[in-house]
């Protein structure tokens, strides 16, 4: 079992560094329901980490813990080598964590361009007064960020729809816009919650290509929840398997695939 702590280079030439984020003994409860039970795993810099498991296993809740939306009753979150104190979601975003959502959380009242620009908000610093005057600092910042956003729009090939109100787009394009918005934040860690949900084979191939390109070109660390096993095996460097709030597997795709507990969980053998 390979478990390098120092950085290493993968067979396809990407560099995977040290531990970027680590979840230590996370337990999350909602009243009497235990959504996550004593789970620990880490995410390495530059890798693509998949989180898989049957429905209701607690995967989205885990992502919400990482986003700072849920606060675990027990356990610690470590980010970039330091323990992360309990903070609000927008502070987590400012630290360099961006995400997409399972049920698409785009701003339906705005255009595609404006939505992606909201991804830049953590980088935009001009104050209220400067923006009221517009000429000068605010305009410069707007143009500079627009340039960055246009690069991402090019990258994800959504140029023709940049002025379209988001509400009018088909599902597949909405997912791409959401990815663009997350990328616009230039995050260190990108969380993707079921990015392939509801897509056909062609769309999945496009999305997979984008995800790989993001990781390859920008070096972004990616953690994704996904149900399509083919995608998971092809894309990810390592996999975490959850079931009923517990971790039942952790390793490379091949290791996990051979794990008896994982096989049982997916085939439905009853546990105590």
């Amino acid at each position, binding site marked *: 079992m390979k478990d390098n702590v120092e950085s290493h280079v993968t067979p396809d030439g990407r560099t995977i560094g040290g531990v970027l984020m680590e979840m230590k003994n996370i337990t999350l409860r909602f009243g009497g329901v235990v959504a996550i039970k004593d789970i620990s795993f880490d995410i390495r810099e530059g890798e693509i980490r998949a989180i898989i498991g049957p429905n209701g296993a607690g995967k*989205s809740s885990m992502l*919400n813990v990482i986003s700072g*939306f849920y606060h675990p009753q027990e356990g610690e979150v470590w980010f970039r080598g330091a323990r992360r104190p309990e903070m609000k979601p927008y502070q987590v975003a400012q630290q360099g964590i961006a995400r997409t*959502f399972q049920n698409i*959380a785009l701003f339906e009242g705005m255009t595609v361009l404006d939505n992606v620009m909201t991804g830049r908000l953590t980088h935009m610093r001009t104050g209220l007064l400067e923006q009221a005057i517009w000429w000068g600092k605010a305009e410069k910042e707007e143009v500079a960020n627009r340039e960055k956003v246009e690069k991402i729009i090019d990258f994800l090939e959504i140029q023709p729809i940049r002025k379209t109100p988001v509400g009018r787009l088909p599902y597949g394009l909405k997912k791409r816009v959401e990815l663009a918005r997350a990328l616009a934040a230039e995050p260190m860690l990108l969380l993707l919650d079921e990015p392939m949900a509801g897509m056909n084979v062609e769309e999945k191939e496009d999305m997979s290509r984008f995800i790989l390109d993001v990781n390859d070109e920008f070096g972004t660390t990616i953690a994704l929840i996904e149900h399509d096993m083919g995608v998971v095996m092809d894309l990810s460097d390592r996999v975490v398997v959850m079931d009923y709030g517990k971790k039942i597997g952790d390793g490379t795709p091949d290791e996990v695939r051979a794990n008896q507990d994982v096989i049982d969980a997916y085939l439905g053998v009853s546990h105590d």
Partner: protein
Amino acid sequence: MPDQLLFAMEVTLNGLMAGVLYSLVALGFVLIFKASGIFNYAQGVMALFAALTLVGIMDGQVPFSHLINAVFGTEIHHFGWHVPALLAIAFTMVFMVAFAWLVNHFVLRHLVNQEPIILFMATIGLAYFLEGFGDIMWGSDIKKLDVGLPQGLNVWIDETTFNAFGYGFFIDNLDIVATVIAALLVTALVVFSQYTKQGRALRAVADDHQAALSVGISLNYIWVLVWSVAGFVALVAGIMWGAKSGVQFSLSLIALKALPVLMLGGFTSIPGAIVGGLIIGVGEKLFEFAIGPLLGGATENWFAYVLALVFLVFRPQGLFGEKIIERV
């Protein structure tokens, strides 16, 4: 007993009575909100319209007389007959059911999937419409409403408390009647909601429109039913308030008073409407009694809102409301 304490007790009792009337109006809101997620700002104007219609029918007024006179230069005002109270109430209910149907047909059906705030604003528009319409139909002068309810000082209570405490409590008969009627109405509504087929359907619709549809519940039917019941509650409230202070525009402002009641009690709870109403009724009067003089008086204009506001900050769903869980 010391005088101040007796005053306070009297104020409290009157506050409770006022609270009952608030609860009555708030009930109409809760019903509609439970069934359709709409906060019906027009509930107060519905009470006004119901009362206007009742008086109009009883006094034999010609509807739209003002308009007719302006257009045709005539001078007609009354038919010349008088309709007995109970019959008039029945006719008014027919009006309110017709109104419920019209509202559902022209407004609600088209706003099915909109956000709550849009629905709320639509009911504000409805309130303005109904107010203007009611004024044109029956005239906007103050009318006296007399359905035969006992009014005035309750002599028995006055004498008994005077003998017991040396101070006679002033409790109006009308308030006592209102309390009894409100209690009966509330019981009836709770029974209706919990034990009848329609009541169950109502709760299903309140929970999930789509699911209710899929088990064969007709949304239109439920909504017309709910608005009719709310219309009935509005009528009762209109009669109570109208008998007390005359049927006039300010009746529609009770809607505004019901809002803090609902905020306190929770928008979806019938017991909440009652408890909230009582708390506001008593709180208002006691605050004005105890602290009002220090602030120059008339604190009843805003106290209810500030109380509800402070309460909401600590408990956003109100006393009995459903906890708002936000998911991503």
